[in-house]
């Protein structure tokens, strides 16, 4: 089904053009354009370019797409809004510039969301990540009642007070595109101008990964792997090499998420696992910070 419509400016952006436009926009603002981190992680925030780089005094600007895995959110591809794998577009700027709202709203305008004709709201949302030992204040940004972005001023990361403060902008790309393209179902999103839809790219994977996350993941093995990566992280911490140690943390975190989706972690255990990961992150944060001096 190749679209033969003549291209005109009013045509809403495709999924991939939305990404390209945002990349171009933030690149112009001086951001280091990165590629997704090559591990399974739950959100763009977990990328070391955000977690570790938000620590310490050196200025830093970056933007990247991050595929994000949320095993518990899988719906076998049956739900029009929920996915166990989706894309975030992440921007991190340290120190937070005073014109950041303008930069953000202009980025929305660049992909066709005009704040003059829509109801853009900054709704209180204090963000906390127990696994990262992180906290921030800010908003979720609503466009006509739909959350399209998380906008956060980091106050603490890896248990360390941030100084200076970074601002993090996380766009939910699928949501945003559903809004831009006026789609009710994420799988109907137009991926490119060659007739490819979101479902052509991801429907099978949603189905299969939901089955894996909820039914087939071998939990005995996963528990073992968790212990293995945890001890690997500890031994790397002893060697004081923060980045490889942090990778192990990310792996542990993802394995924990699958175990959680499989429903084999009780409430009490949950807290225990989270604190295991947080404790590692905190030490790694310190080592990284030390290495920056």
């Amino acid at each position, binding site marked *: 089904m190749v679209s033969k419509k003549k291209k005109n400016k009013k045509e809403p952006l495709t999924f991939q053009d939305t990404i390209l436009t945002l990349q171009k926009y933030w690149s112009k603002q001086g951001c280091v354009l990165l590629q997704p981190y090559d591990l399974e992680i739950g959100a763009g925030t977990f990328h070391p370019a955000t977690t570790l780089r938000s620590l310490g005094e050196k200025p830093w600007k970056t933007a990247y797409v991050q595929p994000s895995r949320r095993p518990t959110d899988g719906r076998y591809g049956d739900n029009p809004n929920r996915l166990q794998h989706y894309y975030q577009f992440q921007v991190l700027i340290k120190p937070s510039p005073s014109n950041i709202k303008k930069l953000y709203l202009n980025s929305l305008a660049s992909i066709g969301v005009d704040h003059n004709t*829509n109801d853009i*709201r*900054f709704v209180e949302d204090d963000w906390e990540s127990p696994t990262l030992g992180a906290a*921030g204040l800010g908003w979720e940004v609503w*466009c006509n009642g739909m959350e399209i972005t998380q906008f956060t*001023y980091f*106050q603490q990361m890896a248990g360390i007070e941030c100084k200076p403060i970074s601002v993090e902008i996380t766009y939910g790309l699928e949501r945003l595109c559903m809004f831009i393209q006026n789609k*009710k179902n994420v799988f109907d999103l137009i991926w490119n101008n060659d007739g490819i839809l979101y479902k052509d790219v991801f429907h099978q994977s949603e189905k299969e990964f939901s089955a894996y996350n909820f039914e087939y993941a071998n939990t005995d093995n996963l528990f073992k792997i968790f212990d293995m990566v945890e001890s690997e992280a500890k031994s790397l911490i002893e060697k004081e090499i923060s980045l490889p140690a942090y990778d192990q943390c990310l792996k542990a975190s993802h394995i924990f998420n699958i175990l959680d989706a499989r429903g084999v972690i009780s409430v*009490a255990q949950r807290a225990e696992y989270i604190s295991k990961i947080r404790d590692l992150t905190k030490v790694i944060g310190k080592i990284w910070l030390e290495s920056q001096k």
Partner: protein
Amino acid sequence: MSEFFLELFSEEIPPKLQISARKNLYENLKKFFEENEILIKGKLNVYSTPNRLIVYIDKITKQISKKSEEIRGPNVNSPDKALEGFLRSNNINKSQVFTKKTQKGEFYFYKKPSQKINTASLLMEHLPNILTKITWNKSMKWGNHNFFWGRPLKSILSIFDGKKLDFNFYHLKSSNITFIDKELEEKIKVFNSFKSYNSFFKSQGILIDQEKRKLFISNEILKISKVKKIKINLKKELLEEITNIVEKPKILFCEFDKKYLSIPKEILIITMQSHQKYFPTFDNKDNLINNFIVVADNKDSKGLIKLGNERVIEARLNDAEFFWKKNRSQNLVKQVSKLKNINYFKGLGSYFDKAQRIRKLCGIISDEMLISKEKIEIASSICKVDLMSDLVGEFPELQGIMGGYFAEAQGFDKEISLAVSEHYLPIGMDSMIPRKPYSVALSISDKLDSLVGFFGINLKPSSSKDPYALRRMAISLVRLIVENNSTLKLKDLINYSSMLYKDQGFEFDIKILQKDLSEFILERLKNYLKDKQVRNDIIESSTKISNVDEILKIYKKSIALNKNIKKDFGQDVISIYKRSSKILYSEKENSLEILGSADPGLFKNDFEKNLYKRIHDIRKYFSSIGKTENYEESLKTLSLAKNEIDAFFDNVIVNDNDPSIKKNRLELLKMLCKSFENYFNFSKIEA
């Protein structure tokens, strides 16, 4: 008189922080004006929008005169350094001081002449401090700056009588300009008076006065409800919140697909109110309908805002509907054993363990309440199953309620579904209370089990912290008993409950637990009585009978006395008791042992005999009433002793020369007091 006007422009400050910042700023300024004797005619106005915190006073003293005053310096005998310091700090020389004797010795004094100070310069000096004193419940830092505010503070506009009032506040410098576009913060404008400021924003459709904004929103919504002939509940908290998240409200009337009305209405209402900040609407029979109200913060010039909000609610309801269909068909009974996987609390077992304990407690209670044991055991077994449902995962505040819906959908008895639905209620002092016996039994068992458990593992609330909301739980327990006229014996139930824990291998020190928990519950009863406006002295006297089995009695006695204490018979009861007990008290020192049994053979006159007879009548009254005591009647019965006691005190001298007659008269009074104590000890009650 002058005009003072201040605007603090920031990124969007959340509603609660705005409200507290307004209050804070108002109080700090008021205090500052009072301390400096700065007069304000008219109002001290504090307004806010999400981005602007505004102070406006239309008439404020331009200049204040500080009266001349004598300032005491050091003692004349203190070292020279002291005097030098005094001169320096007042910026004067030695010729301006004089000495004077006071009671504490001779001191140097300086008579400070009267002076005139401009309010503007005082404000300039003190505003930074006043602003620093705003206490934010949550605050943040941003950029490279090193101070805390609710959200990034961008500019300060400060005007006094048309001129800017210069001061520095951290990295910011006050001026007479502000941003007029909160979105991009590109356009600035000079304002030299509040009037021009206010009318400029009004022309942009922005209402800076939150009260006007609130009124505008509610009026617009009322208009819609009239035109559409529908009901809209302007829930106070929601209206307050919405007022503080918009600056130029536009009301949109929207709708969602009717088919979603088949989802339990609680889900729809929470989705609209809590998640999306919409007002749900109802027909005139109070049935929820598929329209809702959005208060947008922008004109919907292209219809995009309405469309977008309608799509969002449909997506959310679509999700909820999916879960509702899935969860309601998941067999509750078959899921009970899965509760073993959910930890209730460390040291208190799983939710399966809890459900089993509640089931057994309910069994005992059912005997007392004369309800079907079988039914209440079913209700208690399934009451926690909904915790595993997707819907309660999504809407935790609907725990219980969803379980009730599932039970109903699966054909359980109505009383069972209702008991499951209501078993978390009441939640504290103001919430709705279950009335049906099955609901009451389940709710009491659940709360008692939790209280016994947490007290058992010694996680009692401290004076300031109550992380497991045990106070609220105990208050709810008190309410369940009192408001349902329940005569359940809590002592036995507490014991039984700890036995049930023991059977599961959780062993507590029952003696300590029984004592601590009983005291804790009685403390809550006191709070409850306070909430019912019962006088403190009555509360203290009534709860001296510290027996948790008597909660209902204590409550009713207190209420009856509180209600009638100012009436003649109430006053009589107290004066009779007090007169009698006073004499007994004064005789205490003489170490006479008064037990309360007078010997009629020693009576010397009719006054004694009549009083004796009255006491006898009172005793008879109390021994005959049993469980059906009418407490007002009891007070009236006691008050009947007035004639006899008056006659007794008017004509009989207790302090007889014959010690045995004296003792006998004291015994008689003791008897009277004792008979009164069937109600309670009135000695601490103020007439």
